[in-house]
């Protein structure tokens, strides 16, 4: 009896700690995930005329910070001026809201499926520290390349691929080419 009364309320009580430590459910079948992603992408084009994107927000957040620190500098560099010249707020732009939605959507799904956890995803043979360092360097490179190519896997490969932009297909194959070209040398990192 005493054991029961002690365990019963604890079971039903909402525990924040438990919410973030559940066993993660397996991922959706990739084809089904692709169909759903395709429908989201189509709806985006249908309703707004725009595809999806992500890297655009990175540059706008970066320019926003730069504009706080050195507004004169932003007003002198043409590339930055376009996004944040004078009184223009670089965050007053549609892609920023897509990204806020992306964060909320990812967080919600992770929570529902027990995958929102404070952890590091990495290959089995490297330390967390190495993984973090590589993630940082990879982030710099990817974002630099994304600016040069005017879009990343979302804005170019996915969106431009579906709207049949010739240049986007070139960018897509270049991304896969670059990754496959270097994959062999980094096999210890991921396997």
């Amino acid at each position, binding site marked *: 009896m005493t054991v029961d009364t002690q365990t019963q309320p604890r079971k039903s009580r909402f525990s924040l700690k438990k919410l973030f430590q559940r066993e993660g459910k397996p991922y959706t079948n990739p084809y089904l995930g692709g169909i759903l992603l395709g429908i989201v992408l189509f709806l985006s084009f249908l309703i707004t005329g725009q595809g999806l994107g992500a890297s655009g927000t990175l540059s706008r957040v970066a320019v926003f910070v730069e504009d706080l620190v050195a507004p004169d500098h932003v007003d002198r560099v043409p590339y930055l001026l376009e996004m944040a010249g004078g009184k223009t707020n670089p965050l007053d732009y549609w892609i920023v809201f897509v990204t806020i939605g992306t964060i909320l959507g990812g967080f919600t799904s992770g929570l529902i499926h027990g995958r929102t956890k404070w952890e590091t995803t990495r290959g089995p043979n490297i330390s967390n520290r190495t993984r973090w360092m590589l993630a940082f360097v990879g982030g710099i490179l990817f974002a630099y390349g994304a600016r040069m190519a005017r879009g990343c896997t979302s804005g170019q490969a996915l969106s431009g691929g579906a709207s049949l932009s010739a240049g986007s297909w070139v960018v897509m194959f270049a991304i896969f080419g*670059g990754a496959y070209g270097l994959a062999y040398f980094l096999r210890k990192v991921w396997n």
Partner: protein
Amino acid sequence: MTIFPLHLEALIGKPLMYLVYLLIGFGFGYVLEISGFSDSPVLAAQFYFKDLRVLKVMFTAIVVAMVLIFLSTALGILDYNLIWVNPTYLWSGIIGGLIMGVGFIVGGFCPGTSIVAASTLKIDGIIFVLGGLVGVTLFGESEKFFQEFYHGSYYGRLTLMDFLNLPTGIVVLLVVLMALFMFWGGEQLERIIGKKDLSKEPALRYAGAGALVVGALVVLLIGQPANSDRWDSMASQQERRLQERSVYVQPGELLQTMHDHKLNLIMIDVRPETDYNMFHIARSRHIPLEELPEYVGGFHLEPARTLFVLISNDETTSTQAWKYLVAESIPNVYILDGGINHWLTTFWDNEAGIEPQVADTADETLAFDFAAVLGASYVAADPDPHQWEGKIEYIPTIKMDLKRAPTSGGCG
């Protein structure tokens, strides 16, 4: 008129428009998460042929969206001219793509997936995003060293249909078939290298493949609307604007507009080359009617404050050009009222070298004789706005519409 894409800002205002984008983003983030894209080893497995999840999700999404897009355009629900098609910059695209590939295999994410990973509290995802912020800043600071390269090899709004010179339906079908072949090959690789048991894969995927092929065949069968179909769908509304003459700009207003620096004025002279060489309005471009289609893609990429004015000797050819551009959903297109002949009647001012002809009977012929082939070097080609101020009366017609087509993608 096609209904989609919606002109959200005009319909519901900016706050609600941003809410729509937020909801779309929510779907994007949710689907990326359930597909396993917040897990870097899952993403990287693609490049060791063990688990081709990335390829399957991405290409399924691309072909599903593509088939739906081109079904909608074929049925006249969606206007392809008004959706964002990434312009092609060949070499910056290739080099940027290769750098991205390196970043992908080193960092284990791409920007979209890193944002989802960060949102599910993956420490490496958060660090990748921070690295991304550094990367875009570095680009902003270093772009000045290779501006020519960055802006070079530009091909405008080039589609696969333009590049392959094939009809849309064929391209859609080819892309679907290519994707299905890649899925088949990918599954074979997973079986051989990843030691996967393919019999556990759902048989429903064959039905999906069939549906995509059928969809592509329907797109091929219906075909995409031609310029004349597009015109027919809007003719009643647009013919009225022509009859009311609300799209004809009188010479006085055009002169004023030429000196309005808030506008990006593009004057298009559609007359034969000989007439254009003889005399044309300063800063007007010569594009004969039959070459107009090649310029439509570029016109769509012009900024929102762009005003197009079409010019011929009288009005017949320029009105034809107007119908063409309006049917292609180009916003803010006007016609010079009375053409060059009306312009010269207004601004001739007894200029030496230009003689009015006694009778100008035929349509679309010049009503003036010129002593020399001087193009825009005549005074009447570029009248001084101060000299004419208050001397010409006109009824203003130009009303700038908000632009419906996006002028930049998710990357600006």
